[in-house]
């Protein structure tokens, strides 16, 4: 694989994402919401006398879990499908490049665009929180890193949907469906399983990891607070069984596995795709 070609395609994808404005609008919306959430969290803290950053972080974490997949899934979903429809992808693949170079270049560009969006959002929140004081930089950075990992997984899922769906409208529909599944339906599924199958704590922990959102939530919660109850009963059980460092490792490995499996499946499908 020629890195110069990958870099060229990556830079083009970033320019294209900025021009299509989805990532830019998403970044600005995320920045606004992050500042609003931070402001509300800190106001409440002053009134009720609780730890300001804990409240703010918890609110920011919930925003991240809702918003990051909403930003990254459509970004990935429209990338390949849109260019399949307008012929750009055929034109690129017809040049003296390998399909792997095209895929990796585009994926890297999408990840870079997603990273820039999150940097803008978290940057605004960080400036606002920094100006108000009472910020744990380490906890904030860990949460931002967790959000980035979730963004990477969501982008990879979006790309997979994009290649399978082949058209922009179908890919966007699939992306919205995936978002609903990850954000809402998976939790209901876990609850239903717990209620009907009488799963033990270990099994429930395993089932929770199937959803990358849950893995991100636990990973971020681990860094935000020393109080175990923020992890929920399954998280508390996992900390007691594995310890904090090992649990963090398991959660990071889960997110990495999600990224690897979805990206390599997408690459494998793209290699076999007929660009008609």
């Amino acid at each position, binding site marked *: 694989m020629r890195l110069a070609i990958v870099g060229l395609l990556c830079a*083009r994808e970033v320019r294209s994402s900025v021009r299509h404005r989805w990532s830019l609008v998403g970044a600005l919306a995320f920045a606004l919401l992050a500042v609003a959430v931070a402001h509300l969290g800190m106001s409440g803290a002053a009134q009720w006398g609780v730890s300001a950053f804990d409240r703010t972080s918890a609110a920011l974490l919930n925003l991240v879990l809702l918003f990051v997949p909403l930003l990254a899934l459509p970004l990935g979903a429209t990338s390949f499908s849109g260019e399949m429809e*307008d*012929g750009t992808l055929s034109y690129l693949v017809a040049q*003296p490049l390998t399909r792997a170079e095209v895929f990796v270049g585009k994926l890297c560009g999408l990840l870079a665009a997603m990273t820039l969006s999150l940097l803008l959002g978290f940057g605004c929140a960080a400036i606002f929180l920094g100006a108000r004081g009472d910020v744990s930089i380490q906890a904030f950075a860990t949460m931002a890193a967790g959000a980035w990992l979730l963004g990477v997984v969501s982008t990879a899922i979006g790309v997979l949907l994009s290649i399978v769906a082949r058209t922009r409208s179908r890919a966007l529909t699939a992306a919205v469906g995936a978002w609903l599944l990850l954000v809402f339906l998976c939790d209901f599924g876990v609850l239903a399983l717990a209620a009907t199958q009488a799963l033990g704590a270990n099994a429930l922990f395993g089932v929770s990891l199937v959803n990358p959102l849950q893995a991100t939530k636990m990973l971020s919660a681990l860094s935000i607070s020393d109080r175990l109850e923020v992890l929920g009963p399954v998280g508390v059980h996992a900390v007691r069984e594995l310890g904090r460092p090992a649990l963090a490792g398991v959660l990071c490995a889960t997110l990495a596995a999600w990224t690897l499996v979805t990206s390599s499946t997408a690459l494998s499908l793209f290699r076999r795709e007929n*660009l008609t």
Partner: protein
Amino acid sequence: MIRIRGLAVRLSSRDILQGVDLDVARGESVALVGANGAGKTTLLRCLLGLVRHTGSISVGGIDLARDAVGVKRQLGYMPQVPAFCEESARAALTFVAKLRGASVDEIPALLERVGLSAHAHRPVRAFSAGMKQRLSLAAALLGDPPVLVLDEPTASLDVEGQTELVRLLGELVRGGRTLLLSSHRAEEIAALARRVVVLHEGRVKESRTIGSTYEGEPVLAPVSRLRRVAGGAA
């Protein structure tokens, strides 16, 4: 220059191409003709590595299955509808030049050749269809590939655009460039091709050289037919 043997493509449970054999000599200009769905575009796409197929394809002695990048380096591709997302004509050509490993120093001369020098820094989205197609031709010529693959190059152009593009392509043919094009336009085929390959339901039905005069050429019958329909001279 191009050697295709036993090419077959099956898409959505339908045979698009069935056992196609085709040879194109160096410097030859060949037109693929046939009804919609005959397999013209699919054949070109197989050559460019865009569609999975069985059978063998080689260009300049390089086997597509073994070295797709090497084959694609020999080919300049001009799609029916150009797809440039770069801001300006020059930026679009710079991007393609870097992808093809061609020198960006070629760009001013190519823009001049296709008559777009004055528009080098204009946004491509503001170009007319004819200008986009000429830009696409300039991109196809980057790196001076020995073979041009053209998929219905004038299909979306008005008469003026067709005339200008056919003039440019004619220069390339006279200069000895190998040309493989698919087309529905009899005038374009008459102007550019020295041989026509008729595809019918995914098979080569006929391959024949066009004489210096086109009288009585069955594949060019549409010209006469259109003239008759329009009430002009047959």
